[in-house]
């Protein structure tokens, strides 16, 4: 069945030789919403970049039932929507419309189809009518939601987000959490926001120094004070 993430013994070293991922294995079933937590430098972002083929390490990464190979990378990038930490990195066009349209246009779609998708994606994140706005003038919360829309426009089966609530004020955070709650896709979210983890994600994976040190029900993990302290996590 589709919508799965299946990582087996993933190893990756940075260009200068330091190991970033040391044998990471995890499986995410369709429709699951999973949190990925760990201290800075633990390899969260590096792992995420492997999930749509931007980085290629040793070991196997299967997404939606298919191992990532050169031939299927373009298809995988449409199926796995990656939302990065800094929305300014993803909103690189002059208007919101163009940014959200970027994915569909590069998938080769017709103009009318592109427009339809843009409308749908913006509606899904609550940003209807923002097509003509300039990214530079949006608030952080608005930028984050538009960034998610840029990925939703490609109709992905899986969403992977890196620190989606960082830098948001309480209202923006509340809006984003509520958005994530309503999106139907399989989800993997890297975050430091433990309260959001408790609220949204029934399962949590803990990563530290490139290795998975815990993977299980969130409530269990949060009760394990030793574990939390050992890996610099606080609720």
């Amino acid at each position, binding site marked *: 069945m589709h919508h799965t993430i299946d990582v087996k013994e993933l190893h990756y070293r940075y260009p200068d030789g330091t190991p970033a991922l040391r044998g990471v294995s995890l499986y995410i079933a369709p429709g699951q919403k999973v949190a990925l937590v760990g201290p800075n430098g633990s390899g969260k972002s590096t792992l995420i*970049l492997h999930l*749509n083929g*931007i980085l290629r390490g040793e070991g196997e990464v299967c997404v939606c039932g298919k191992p990532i190979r050169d031939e299927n990378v*373009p298809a995988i*990038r*449409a199926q796995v*929507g*990656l939302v*990065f930490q*800094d929305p*300014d*990195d*993803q909103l*690189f*066009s*002059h*208007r919101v419309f*163009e940014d959200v*349209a*970027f*994915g569909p*246009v*590069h*998938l080769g779609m017709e*103009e009318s189809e*592109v427009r339809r998708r843009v409308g749908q994606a913006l509606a899904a994140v609550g940003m209807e009518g923002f097509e003509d706005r*300039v*990214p*530079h003038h949006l608030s952080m919360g608005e930028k984050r939601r538009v960034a998610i829309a*840029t*990925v939703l426009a*490609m109709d992905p089966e899986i969403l992977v987000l890196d620190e989606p609530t960082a830098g948001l004020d309480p209202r923006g955070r509340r809006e984003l959490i509520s958005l994530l709650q309503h999106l139907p896709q399989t989800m993997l979210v890297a975050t430091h926001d433990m309260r959001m983890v408790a609220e949204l994600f029934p399962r949590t994976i803990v990563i530290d120094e490139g290795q998975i040190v815990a993977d299980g029900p969130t409530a269990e993990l949060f009760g394990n004070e030793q574990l939390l302290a050992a890996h610099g996590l606080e609720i």
Partner: protein
Amino acid sequence: MHFDLTDAYRPRKSAIHRLDPRVKLVVALLYILTTVAMPDGEWEAFGLLQIVALAFAWRSNLGPFYAFRRAFIALPFILAALPIPFLMPGPTVWTMPVVGWGVSAPGLVRFLSILLRTWLAVQAGILLSATTRLPEILWALSVLRVPATLVSIIGFMYRYIFILADEAVRMLRARSARSPKATGPSRPSLLWQGRMAGMMVGSLFLRSLERSERVYEAMLSRGYAGQVRMLQAFHMGRGDWLALLMAGVLLAVPVGLMLIR
């Protein structure tokens, strides 16, 4: 703090704003070409061209003297032409007191002509950027056969200028918060200050390099494979062709005047 570099564009509801960006770009370039090609001393032609510029400014709901006033910026360069009235041969019309340098009539005519040409050409540029958003100008350039890659590069640059300028401003502010007075006996040496500025530049470069890497990854994630594709944005309407024709006629008048002589 926001570095507001969109200063140039002034949103208005005007006939000119609504025109196809290709028309505005072509008309601006033709205007500048006409102006620059005018021989020295064609005062009537210059006057007509100025009226055309005022008319365009007025039609754009910017106020007729919008561009006229702002054309000052080009003037510092006029110093380059300053020697001309003194060096060009011809009957002397005025002699400078004390040093006795003579100003010749042809020299003066030439100097003033250069001044006027520059003033007019700058007005055309100001009106273009005030009535047309930069992304639209860029699109018009790409349609007029400027290499698409270059246009994309400029587009990206425009997008990230604000962010990087903000970072530069933050660095400058942090520096002034930490620096002793810039003048006076206890100030740090020129060399040290220069090196500090250099290090700020270097660190801004690294941040830019890293950001470009992240932008590239974001582009890859949305299907980018080396060619930036754009949707067709504008279609020439009847009003656009009419405007083009009108501009052509208007510009032909000063040229005709000049040829008659």
